[in-house]
């Protein structure tokens, strides 16, 4: 990473997310156990851990795709509770990219991107299209704007999904295993897009097993197991000197093959 990029990727003191003593159950299954996490603006956090450890559930709680049962979650100073107004406000500021893209197959790429700015931000159509084209260019597929999602490759679809979230100009981006459903040939193009985004100073929380990505852009790596955060370090430390036995086991399983 060049020095100028490192400068751009500086972390500020402004707190963007604070979770304290968050617990969540699916029926009787205790899926998030006493989660405490603070994220500052500009931070790039990678969450990893074995499957079923609650990584996805954690970030899905941040925009109320899942409801937590106890504890406090604060996003951008807004308390996440049953108040629909607060939920809407948070969702406007938090973008999310899914494992399976979740593009809308009946709308063109451009319409996918302009939908939320037009209907949620009440932006005039022309302005929304200008913004959409700006971000489609940033993810390097402006020429696909008038195609339908089904006509694009997986990697292209995921880049559209990233552009679609960016069109809302969010303060924070959540990535839920963005490369897990992609063919190996397409992972790189999506990761490159995410790296570029990080270098522009976007705050992001990313659930992923792409350790190369974690080394390159993350300023903190969080390891979860059985619904708890059991290790939290900067990437070099995390990969070179893991403390917890479960972290060591996990790293040996995903790195040594």
């Amino acid at each position, binding site marked *: 990473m060049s020095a100028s990029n490192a400068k751009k990727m500086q972390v500020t003191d402004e707190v963007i997310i604070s979770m304290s003593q968050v617990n969540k159950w699916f029926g009787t299954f205790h899926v998030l156990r006493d989660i405490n996490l603070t994220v500052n603006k500009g931070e790039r956090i990678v969450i990893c851990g074995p499957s079923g450890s609650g990584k996805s559930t954690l970030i899905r709680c941040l925009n109320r795709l899942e409801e937590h049962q106890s504890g406090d979650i604060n996003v951008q100073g807004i308390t996440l509770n049953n108040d629909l107004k607060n939920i809407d406000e948070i*969702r406007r500021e938090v973008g999310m990219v899914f494992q399976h893209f*979740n593009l809308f*197959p009946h709308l063109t790429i451009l319409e996918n991107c302009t939908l939320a700015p037009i209907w949620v931000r009440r932006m005039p159509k022309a302005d929304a299209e200008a913004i959409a084209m700006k971000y489609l260019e940033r993810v390097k597929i402006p020429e696909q704007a008038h195609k339908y999602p*089904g006509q694009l490759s997986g990697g292209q679809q995921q880049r559209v999904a990233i552009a679609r979230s960016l069109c809302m100009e969010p303060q924070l981006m959540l990535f839920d295993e963005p490369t897990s459903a992609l063919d190996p040939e397409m992972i790189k193009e999506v990761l490159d897009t995410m790296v570029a985004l990080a270098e522009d100073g976007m705050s992001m929380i990313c659930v992923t097993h792409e350790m190369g990505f974690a080394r390159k852009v993350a300023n903190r790596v969080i390891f979860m197991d059985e619904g708890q955060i059991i290790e939290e370090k900067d990437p070099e430390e995390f990969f070179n000197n893991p403390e917890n036995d479960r972290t060591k086991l996990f790293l040996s399983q995903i790195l040594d093959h």
Partner: protein
Amino acid sequence: MTTPHKYVRTEDAPLLPPPATEAGITGWLWQNIFASMADYQSIGAAIRSLFMITFSLLLVYVFINQTFGLIDFAILSAVWSDPDGLKREACWTVQQGGALPDGWHGACWPFVWAKQKFAWFGPYPSEELWRVYIALAVGTVGLIWALLDRMPYHRQVGVLMLTIYPLLAFILLTGGNNEASLTSIGVWIFGGLAMISVGRMGAAGYLGAVFAEISSVFSIVGWGIIALNVVRGIASVDFNLTPVGTGDWGGLLITLVVALTGIVASLPLGIILALGRRSQMPVVSILCTIFIEFWRGVPLITVLFMASVMLPLFLPAGVNFDNLLRALIGVMLFSAAYMAEVVRGGLQGIDKGQYEGAQAMGLSYWQTMRLIILPQALTHVIPGIVNTFIGLFKDTTLVSIVGIFDLLGAGQSAVADAAWSTPVQAITMYLYIGVIFFIFCFGMSRYSIFMENKLSKSRRH
């Protein structure tokens, strides 16, 4: 370096032309006509092929035979006109006292021509028929305009067809001038406005979190009440038209009124019921489920009987509303319940990720439904929706059991006319009615296929 195995290629395999059974005219014939009858490679296959040939020839024979029979009856042997005004004698054989050769069997079209006005419009007064013609003409043009997406403004025309046209048709057909009192309309509209305000306050969160979630129901009902009373208001204006009661309507006119009202009302009602049934709110969900299961559980004939015979017994004396209107409401609610289940099928086919994608971007529940979920769900169930429409169109014939004369009912009473009594009278009329029904139902079917093809282009995966 080791020598490569023999099965590893050292040069590209050549691209070869396809065999005759795969491409060109021979390929088409092979795949579409002879697929199951041209294989003689084993005794079993040969027997199967010979059987298929025999069976195919038999089918072709039956088809041609029947088609010719129909063409002969309807066109070649048919009596087309009755220039001398002989009525039934125009279609009598020598033996029966007429002029046609013995053993003649053909359609008696002059009978249908003579009864055409009755079959189409029933006892609607002839001097007022121009109103029906205008309503039909505007309706036909508007419908075609709205359905063809090549036409400019087809969406706007569609909206007009759903809002202004029913009112126009209602005033033209009945003559308007309903005596609704201004006070009653005013009170209802005031009530509607009150409901909308309550809904607004609820949505803004002034009335508690639980209420905020059902506030949209209040707004919808409020707007419905206002729209209904604006219609009542306009329908009570005196347009100086002779009133024609629905008792004087009949024939195809009734069929179209019942079917179109049912079709137009059942889709939105069905969508609301389907969304309600899948709602997270238990009260809404249970109410919608009970409604749907109730109406699906009773036969349409029962519904119509209840509406026309039983309902007046329960209403207070003096309160009476139109027999046709009662049947219409019955048909509407009945078909809405069926439509709801078709739509629910479509909703269940939508991936959970679509809801999450929309929610994560901050779209509200109604925005998510209108912009993301329903367009996809309804596209998936177009065949089911059109199936319900076609079923409804044909079920309108049941209204004749409560004394409303639809196309079939009017045709049947025309058949009873002794002045046209011939052995072929009934067959001719039923053939005519069958053709009319077929044109409408086949039209709907073709349009649905056209829509499916048009919409499926966005679903290439």
